[in-house]
């Protein structure tokens, strides 16, 4: 480690002190507890009782328009002592975890060129072929996945109409992420809505202050 520091010094004589000075923050002006990355980069919205009572979900909207969907802390699944034990993406017509949006956004796949990789499920392959943008258009009430506790299972829905860009497939192997950090590593999916669609759905969402009041969550 020392030689790296030396390397900087020898190439930047006298500059090292200057650098230290520039880097050192003004401690007194630092807040005791700074906002988290999520808090700084997203605006939090909530969809309480989405389609069913107790199915509380969040929608974190980034400045660039992307929406991260997940389970709000007051979701009925968390009422269970043990919490979430499994996550299943095989809902609706296709297995959502098969969605892998590749880099080639503009490529149009043709049914005639369908190739299944060994072991790949036919349904997943079909999903990849379906539309030109290689990302699936979903309605707000489309199912994303099913979260299971010991006793029950609950459907998680998109909440926002748009292109489904990503699902958090880590949840398959690590469903506990929902219990420990549903608002971060336990996110469910990322959706890109069109501006008009966002405005429509935004009207039915509530902000964090309203949510806290509503659900008496601190």
């Amino acid at each position, binding site marked *: 480690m020392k030689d*790296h520091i030396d390397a900087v010094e020898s190439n930047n004589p006298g500059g090292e002190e200057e650098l230290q000075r520039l880097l050192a923050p003004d*401690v007194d002006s630092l807040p005791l507890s*700074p906002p988290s*990355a999520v808090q700084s980069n997203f605006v939090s919205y909530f969809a309480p009782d989405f389609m069913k009572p107790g199915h509380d979900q969040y929608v974190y909207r980034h400045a660039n328009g992307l929406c991260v969907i997940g389970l709000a802390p007051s979701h009925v699944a968390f009422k269970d002592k043990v919490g979430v034990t499994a996550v299943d993406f095989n809902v609706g017509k296709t297995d959502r975890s098969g969605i892998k949006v590749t880099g080639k956004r503009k490529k149009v796949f043709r049914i005639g060129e369908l190739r299944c990789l060994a072991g790949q499920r036919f349904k997943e392959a079909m999903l990849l072929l379906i539309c030109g943008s290689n990302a699936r258009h979903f309605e707000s009430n489309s199912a994303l996945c099913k979260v299971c506790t010991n006793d029950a299972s609950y459907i998680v829905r998109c909440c926002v109409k748009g292109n489904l860009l990503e699902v958090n497939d880590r949840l398959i192997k690590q469903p506990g992420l929902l219990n420990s950090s549903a608002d971060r590593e336990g996110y469910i999916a*990322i959706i890109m809505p069109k501006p008009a669609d966002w405005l429509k759905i935004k009207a039915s969402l509530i902000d964090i202050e309203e949510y806290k009041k509503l659900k008496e969550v601190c």
Partner: protein
Amino acid sequence: MLNETGDTRVINDCEAAATAAKVSFSDDARRMIPGEEDMRILSDAASKVSPEAVKDLLSLGICIGCVFRLSWVRGHIFSRPSILLSIFNPVIGEPTDSSTHRPTRIEENKDPGSVHSSQVSECEPVICSICLGVLQFTYFDDQKMLVKKDSADELAATIANLVKKEGHEFDDFSLEVSIPSVITENENVVLFYMKKKYGSEQWFQEKTQSERISAKDALKLSLCSPLEKLLGVKSSVSSTFRIRLTYAPPGASRKNQNITEKRQECKRRKTGAENSFSTVHGSLIYGIECSEVTTSKADAGIRKPSDGLEDHENSDCFKFLLEKVNQPCHLEFHCYRTHIYIGGRYLKYSRNVSQTRWYIDDERMGEASVEIIGSNILPMCLCDNYKFHAAGREDINVRMLGSGRPFLVEIQNSRHVPSEALLKEIEVKINNLENKLVMVKNLKLVGSHGWSLMQEGEEEKQKQYAALVWIDRPLTDEDIEAISSSKDMQILQRTPIRVLHRRSPLEREKIIHWMKIEKIAGSSQYFLLHLCTQAGTYIKEFVHGDLGRTHPRPEESRHQLSFDVGDLFLVQKVDATN
């Protein structure tokens, strides 16, 4: 061919022509009027050509310069066509076809005593069927006026005046000439004819392996020395200052594209021509059809493909093929300096300055951009515009500290090459701007190799950063030790959410070479994280995890810390690997 009286008469005529035409020759240029040495060169050249061939070609409407070129004569003889003609005067005598030729304008200015020259010049066509006047120094200028110069010297004088008007400073120059492709096509037609007619003659066969000088090179050769004398500097291929002459065939230059295309079409359609005269006629008609379709001025000198020329050609038929040309090319003159690169390193002290000018929906993002470097260089170098290139980039809210980021400013058409002193002045000026947002170091001229240095800099190097980080519990010594001991940690980064809307979703593997925690006095939860990473790593996401989408490879068991980024600084290390 050549006799003593011919020599003296030539010299007298030239001097008379000079005074009569009242060309503003400098004393140096006057010495270009052939002295003994030049006459020796000329007579040597003259001995290489066949007088019959010369007469024949002249009668076909080809200028004397092109006649000599096609006879494999090279060297500095193309500057004054009138001299070349006068060599042949005794042989040529009366003009054969007065309808094709008429006295050139300059004759009107001559003294009666040099009526001899006027007879000579009458042999030459007004506009050459091959070079369209290029080697006759005849052209339409940008005012669409017909201009005829007597010699390369005169044309050089006009060019030199135009150059001086542009106000460039230069130590050398490079002359570029562009002539229309139709000239080469015309030449091929004539070469084919010559081969058919003279191929069996000795003078032709002796030379057939040598190379002929092209019209373009002949022009450049004749213009180079006078330009050097008039501009006072040498010509050099590597010069950044370019003088460009562009000849366009008569008729709108835009139509030129159509003409070439149609000609290509004609060529394509003419496949496998049979050995018959009728085919020649057929293609001749085709050629005319093509020309009429594309432009109203059929005297654009459109040539037929030489595919159609077969054994039966004689010079009568040939005259059909070489249409009479009565309009020269348009000459466009342009001088400019090619790109010059100024390189250096920049530092960015502001968290509100983007690297390049950035607008979203007409709204300016950030209060300035690093391109103010370029906008400060522009007026000092008197150039037309600039392009800013940097080796890598940083976000608008990330500072660039340490030794700085390499950049190149490409300036276009500067009126002079900036000196070291001027660059120093620019550096001082930028560094003393009021708001001190950006600083530059080591500003200097770089050659084209600077470009490859930049690209290397982007891809291969390791980058060093410093991030202000906060954790939700006091820092322990174990934390510090765990961080310091991790070397070359492999991480996987999915495309960060903050750029996912405009970048392809990919998973990238990156390496964090080393990390070091620097405690901050007065706080147990804030600290500086110094790290050195592979180029292209998203630092913010590495620190805060991006909802778990950036993480160490699962195989790596690392001491897990939960960090939130409070702030991010950027430091550039001078590479120990270089």
